[in-house]
């Protein structure tokens, strides 16, 4: 390459994927370039035409279309196009027209193919499908977080310490002291092969045995936790951490089928993540009043930013934030019961929306409800539950979880009802679906019992899982609502591009990205009768039913992860800069990497919406007619 061509080289080197290209390779590109000028309005590539060049925009702007004439993308300085055709027997698939006077650097297909074969980063970037590069972008990112790449078995440092579940309290305490463990596994040894029956921890001994002054001869089975929360030996550390967060337990038996491999403790994970959000959770349980809880809530954002900086994935962050929100709610309920006395009838406090989905972030309002026992008598009992709901709701607001503007809170009488009324709500929504009404009740289809008789919430989940999959009309209505919000087409300079070619200065990454995704994932999940609430778990359930093609599920997962991470990073940056975090993003705030992968992710969302429309459309027609 002539040294004088440095200006051309520098221009390429400022733009992805040339910015990461080896010097000799870049020199080869520069030497191969032919420069062409196109006047505004002139076609550059026409459908079906032969083409042997990759087109790099040096100045000006170009529109790329689909075969149908639909706008596909608008390219400006530093972006390239034409690779579709080069990979398809050198026949133009996506026509292109100059919309401003353009200076184009043309790179011959021989060089393009050389780069494609020899530069992985370039190939990822130029991949027309865009989806495999989304995946490689994500995997590159996840490799950097040890919690996501290491298996829980790495944390097991010794053989499990176990005792028969027939031992007495004092004996159990002695074993734990002798062995120096904070948790003891209790086995059922009636069969030949002992089976894990329960667990007892230091904390259990303190709170259940000592404070109650139980006799030392008490059978351990009376105070052990029998409803066991465990993790699989194949799990990653972060999954174990999520399980702990979700269930507020500090010890997890690690299971290999029905055999115990060991026990991991909160402290083992803390070694990996010193400022764990698990700490914050345990801290929440130590606060004695709303004022102190409010103080603790100031750490929530720090914890969020820390997780982002440690390259945690969105599932991890969303679950951790939901776990924190859940803990605030649970602690407030405990404090409320202390203040108001025990509840007159059993009840379940229920989280809705993002908290129920384990997809909570830092900008969030509270969405909750109460399921009361069917013996509930409003005249006699409702004053208590209203007071409790108000106590919790005010407390949550003080801790940063603002009141729900749609009044979806347990303080609203409509959402503070006995189980039988809740069942009738769901039956009505599913059997007599009305688009308008469903828009408002969408949020109830993401539900999770978080306190009290959580089995009430489980009953509702079962009802929904069984009924929804059989109601095509309900699914069709839900699908139609899921198409209300569409993703943008892409970006052009400092603008957001819409499908009709309009340009906007900002866009809402939640409304235009994560929300349409979780909406459409919910429809498929309900259609296949899944009880899962989290979008990633719902995708797993969908994949098992083959309701949508396997790679379609993978694409949705990648798109959700990428959009979520960009949204999360955007909020973390705002917090670090001392601004109030929000969901509104300006294209100039995005890195070239984020821009190009976001466009891919939007494409996945858009295709998935088209599929949803096609999949459930006929049913709408039949019943509406």
């Amino acid at each position, binding site marked *: *390459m*002539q*040294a*004088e*061509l440095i*200006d*051309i080289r520098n221009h390429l080197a400022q733009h992805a994927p040339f910015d990461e290209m080896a010097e000799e390779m870049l020199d080869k590109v*520069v*030497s*191969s*370039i*032919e*420069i*062409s*000028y*196109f*006047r505004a309005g*002139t076609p550059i590539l026409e459908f079906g035409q032969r083409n042997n060049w990759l087109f790099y925009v*040096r*100045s*000006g702007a170009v529109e790329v279309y689909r075969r149908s004439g639909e706008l596909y993308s608008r390219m400006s300085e530093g972006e390239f196009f034409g690779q579709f055709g080069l990979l398809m027997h050198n026949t133009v698939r996506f026509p292109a027209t100059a919309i*401003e*006077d*353009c*200076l184009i650097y*043309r790179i011959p297909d021989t060089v393009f193919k050389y780069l494609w074969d020899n530069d992985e980063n370039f190939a990822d970037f130029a991949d027309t499908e865009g989806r495999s590069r989304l995946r490689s972008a994500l995997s590159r990112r996840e490799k950097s977080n040890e919690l996501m790449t290491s298996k829980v078995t790495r944390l097991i440092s010794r053989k499990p310490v176990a005792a028969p579940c027939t031992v007495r309290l004092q004996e159990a305490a002695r074993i734990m002291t002798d062995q120096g463990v904070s948790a003891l596994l209790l086995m059922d040894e009636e069969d030949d092969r002992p089976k894990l029956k329960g667990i007892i921890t230091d904390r259990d001994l303190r709170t259940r045995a000592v404070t109650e002054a139980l006799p030392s001869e008490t059978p351990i089975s009376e105070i052990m936790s029998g409803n066991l929360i465990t993790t699989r030996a194949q799990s990653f550390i972060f999954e174990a951490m999520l399980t702990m967060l979700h269930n507020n337990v500090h010890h997890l038996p690690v299971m290999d089928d029905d055999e115990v491999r060991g026990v991991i403790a909160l402290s083992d994970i803390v070694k990996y993540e010193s400022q764990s959000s698990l700490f914050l959770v345990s801290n929440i349980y130590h606060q004695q009043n709303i004022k102190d809880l409010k103080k603790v809530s100031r750490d929530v954002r720090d914890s969020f930013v820390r997780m982002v900086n440690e390259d945690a994935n969105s599932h991890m962050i969303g679950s951790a934030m939901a776990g924190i929100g859940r803990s605030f709610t649970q602690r407030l309920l405990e404090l409320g019961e202390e203040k108001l006395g025990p509840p007159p009838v059993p009840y379940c406090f229920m989280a809705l929306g993002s908290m129920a989905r384990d997809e909570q972030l830092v900008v969030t309002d509270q969405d909750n409800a109460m399921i009361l026992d069917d013996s509930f008598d409003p005249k006699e009992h409702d004053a208590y539950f209203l007071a409790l709901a108000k106590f919790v709701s005010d407390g949550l607001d003080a801790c940063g979880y603002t009141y729900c503007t749609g009044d979806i809170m347990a303080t609203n009488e409509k959402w503070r009802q006995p189980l039988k009324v809740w069942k009738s709500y769901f039956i009505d929504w599913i059997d007599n679906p009305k688009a308008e009404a469903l828009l408002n009740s969408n949020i109830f289809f993401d539900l999770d019992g978080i306190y009290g008789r959580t089995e009430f919430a489980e009953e509702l989940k079962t009802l929904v899982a069984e009924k929804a999959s059989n109601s095509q009309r309900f699914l069709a209505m839900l699908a139609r609502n899921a198409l209300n919000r569409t993703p943008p087409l892409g970006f052009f300079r400092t603008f957001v591009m819409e499908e009709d070619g309009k340009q906007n200065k900002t866009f809402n990454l939640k409304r235009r990205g994560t929300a349409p995704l979780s909406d459409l994932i919910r429809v498929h999940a309900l259609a296949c009768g899944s009880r899962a609430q989290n979008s990633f778990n719902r995708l797993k359930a969908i994949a098992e039913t083959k309701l949508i093609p396997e790679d379609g599920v993978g694409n949705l997962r990648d798109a959700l992860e990428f959009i979520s991470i960009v949204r999360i990073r955007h909020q973390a940056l705002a917090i670090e800069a001392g601004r109030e975090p929000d969901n509104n993003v300006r294209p100039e705030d995005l890195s070239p990497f984020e821009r190009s992968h976001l466009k891919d992710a939007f494409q996945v969302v858009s295709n998935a919406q088209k599929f949803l429309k096609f999949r459930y459309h006929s049913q709408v027609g039949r019943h509406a007619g």
Partner: protein
Amino acid sequence: MPDNKEPISETSETWPELFDQLAENAKDSRLKAFYQAGCVAPDMPLADVPLVALDFETTGLDPDRHSIVSIGLVPFSLDGIQVGKGRHWVVRPQLPLEQASITIHGITHTDIDKAPDLGDVLDEILEAMAGRIAVVHYRSIERPFFNVALQWRLNEGIRFPVIDTMAIEGHLHPNRRPTRWQKFRGMKPVSIRLADSRTRYGLPHYPPHNALIDAIATAELLQAQIHHHFNPDTAVKDLWL
């Protein structure tokens, strides 16, 4: 627009015949080969014409008093500029290099001391130009300086047609200097210098005063001018001088 429609070129259509004749008479073998490569037919559409953008950096504006310091050229056609075939030479001037021109071209005395004489690279330059129509920005530099330099070394000059992108701009903007009244109304004179002309066509800014970059910049400007004001079928004789 008064005289926009008048042809830019008033020169004869006889360049091909003239080349035959010059080939006959040339004494230097390199010059002979250059002329023998021929000149395209006057009626050839611009789309088919092989072109070469040419730029000299010189120590001044007078071919009889100043010297060539560097030469840049790049072959192209209306379709594309072949960047990889671009060439750049620093050549040793016969006359002393003045301080002023050092600051303009960024070429230092050390560069020049190591540089070959124009005569040593003449074969390469002429080979790159052979069979192509030269494109320059401001015709009073490259052709006259080249002619004088060859007179000096070979005792015979050189003649060839050029397309002058500056002349085209001048032709498009005949009344570049505002009248006193227009000046009063705030009208600015239209500049037909290379960088300013490029801006009118939306062409990017390049760092000036490197012969190869200026040659590329000139080639891009001609492409833009043809797409805006002429068309690919325009005969080359309408533009060459």
